């Protein structure tokens, strides 16, 4: 991919960054170019590289790792997070954040199960419409009224969970998926891989195209990279912001619906902390929380990385899933520190 990623310059001082000293410009440039390439590699493909390393390690260390069933299990369990993280990638590249996706995910599942009484179409349309509308509302508050994304979507997290409880009798009612076709959407699929995985692959591919090859994608990068410049270059900043939150809401709702299809019910106790997993996957994938840098493939690698870590920990056997959280947290720290260190040594100008 030729997308504009790598390490940001230090925007804090607004001055030309210091260089290594008064060495000759050409020698400087060569070393700088090498560092730049290395930095770009680590930033954008670091997650993929670590993923590859872990996969090799898993194959060597555990007989049960590189089996068809196990790999299928990894991609199936990762697909829902992947769809949510896809939307989050757009939001974060635009310089925002969406904390409401976990709640939207649950709400989407409950609404899908509820809607499945009226057939497949309703089971998909209802969560998409409601979650999309909530995403849109958050986008308007953020884009039009200029409220902070963090706080708007924090309120969204709370309010949407309330809404979910309201439609499920305070969580007491678990709607069962009534429609066979909808349930099959979550449970069956070609080549023994369930539909959510194929849908994730298709959405990720569409996401790459949307981000790299459409005007909307350019606008997302521009708004996140330099909002003032974007507006001067004629980018519709407000509309772009509204659209990314709409997209994030839609995808979170869809992921919830697919998950409900998989479980055959709208389980009300899911999705706690999902927003954090999604953000972690996006950041591990090389997208900077400061906006303007990142991509879909990195996020997908980040999601898979978290999935593989969890799987490997399960392979060890006597370790709980809590170890996975420790590892993810530690990994996240490592990634952000590495990003900072890289960006410090990378300041060119």
């Amino acid at each position, binding site marked *: 991919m030729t997308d504009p990623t790598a390490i940001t310059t230090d925007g804090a001082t607004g001055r030309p960054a210091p260089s290594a000293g008064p060495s000759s410009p050409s020698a400087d440039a060569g070393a700088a170019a090498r560092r730049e390439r290395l930095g770009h590699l680590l930033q954008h493909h670091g997650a993929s590289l670590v993923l590859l390393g872990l996969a090799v390690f898993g194959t060597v260390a555990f007989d049960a790792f590189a089996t068809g069933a196990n790999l299928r299990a990894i991609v199936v369990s990762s697909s829902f997070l992947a769809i949510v993280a896809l939307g989050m990638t757009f939001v974060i590249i635009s310089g925002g954040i969406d904390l409401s996706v976990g709640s939207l995910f649950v709400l989407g599942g409950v609404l899908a199960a509820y809607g499945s009484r009226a057939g497949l179409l309703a089971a998909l349309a209802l969560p998409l419409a409601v979650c999309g509308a909530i995403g849109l509302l958050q986008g308007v508050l953020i884009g039009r009224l200029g409220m902070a994304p963090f706080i708007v979507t924090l309120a969204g997290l709370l309010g949407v969970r*309330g809404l979910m409880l309201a439609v499920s009798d305070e969580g007491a009612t678990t709607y069962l998926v009534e429609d066979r076709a909808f349930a099959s959407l979550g449970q069956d699929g070609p080549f023994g891989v369930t539909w959510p995985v194929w849908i994730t692959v298709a959405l990720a591919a569409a996401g790459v195209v949307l981000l790299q090859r459409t005007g909307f994608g350019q606008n997302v990068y521009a708004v996140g990279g330099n909002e003032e410049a974007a507006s001067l270059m004629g980018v519709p900043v407000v509309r772009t912001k509204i659209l990314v939150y709409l997209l994030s809401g839609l995808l979170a709702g869809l992921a919830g619906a697919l998950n409900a299809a998989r479980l055959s019910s709208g389980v009300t106790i899911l999705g706690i902390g999902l927003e954090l997993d999604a953000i972690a996957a996006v950041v591990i994938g090389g997208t900077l929380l400061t906006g303007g840098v990142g991509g879909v493939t990195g996020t997908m690698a980040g999601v898979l990385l978290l999935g593989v870590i969890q799987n490997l920990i399960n392979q060890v056997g006597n370790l709980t899933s809590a170890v996975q959280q420790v590892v993810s947290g530690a990994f996240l720290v490592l990634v952000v520190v590495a990003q900072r260190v890289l960006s410090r040594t990378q300041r060119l100008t």
Partner: protein
Amino acid sequence: MAEAVAGRRPGLDRARVLAWAREYGVYVSVLALLLFNVVFTPNFVDPGNFRTQLVQVAPIVIVALGMALVIGTEGIDLSVGSVMALAASMVVLYLGYGPVPAVLVALAAGAATGAVGGALVAYVGVQPIVATLALLVGVRGLANVLVPQLKEISNPGLLALGSGSVAGVPYVVLIAAALTAVMAFVVRRTTFGRRIVAIGGNRTASELSGLPVKRLLLAVYVISGTLAAGAGVLATARLQAGDPTSLGLFMELSAITAVVIGGTPLSGGRIRVLGTVMGALLMQLLQATLIKHDLPQSWAQIVQAAIILAAVYAAGNRGAR
């Protein structure tokens, strides 16, 4: 010119209303809600009820006090809920050495977590939201690894901390009140408090004025971690069990909400200690009121969300003339 002046009147009035709402809104709301309950809620004016409400809100207040400091420096601490869980697991692990060492270890673990977050923010330059997000994930996992399941506690000393009281006032409430007083004092009367407010107000100016900005930021996160651990210890004592899996879930949201509603702007430069306590009380009262009047939990959350948005909208119009 006259026209222009006339045209500005409504705008000024609106700004004044917003400013007033920011300043006193939270107090007025708490009062109004209290009045409403006194008149319309049966059995509200019952000491037992008051006690329950205060005991429930105390851990939130304690965490929110630390959060207010962090937000005052234009930061955020998402790790507080997980730190509570870590504190619970430490209590479980070290209670064998007696309650005092266990509590001290728990507080030290909170301080250490805060130090990691603070170091990432101050020295490495990681955004507060990312640094503390990583801790949120990792520290909760660590707590679960150390103590995988809920563990009941029977040490009488620690249990007394959770359920004991002086003259009918539970220890937990007394501690929260004392910490509030200390925090108010720190913010208003100490060099440290004055300096962190200045950092939030203008970091460059603070640096050029020779303030040890990095060290101060580190200290702020350490305090937040320690307070969160303290809240975790108290909650554990009250629950009579260490529960690293669910203790403190969503605590960061409750604390941030309390701070923001209490009038501390997310952009830093101002810390309202009493407002923060009022913010926590308001949310608690609101929830209690809605439940007492048979409005379900779901509505309580939706109303809370609306209140957060309204509070931030009001705060966001600061400076708009």
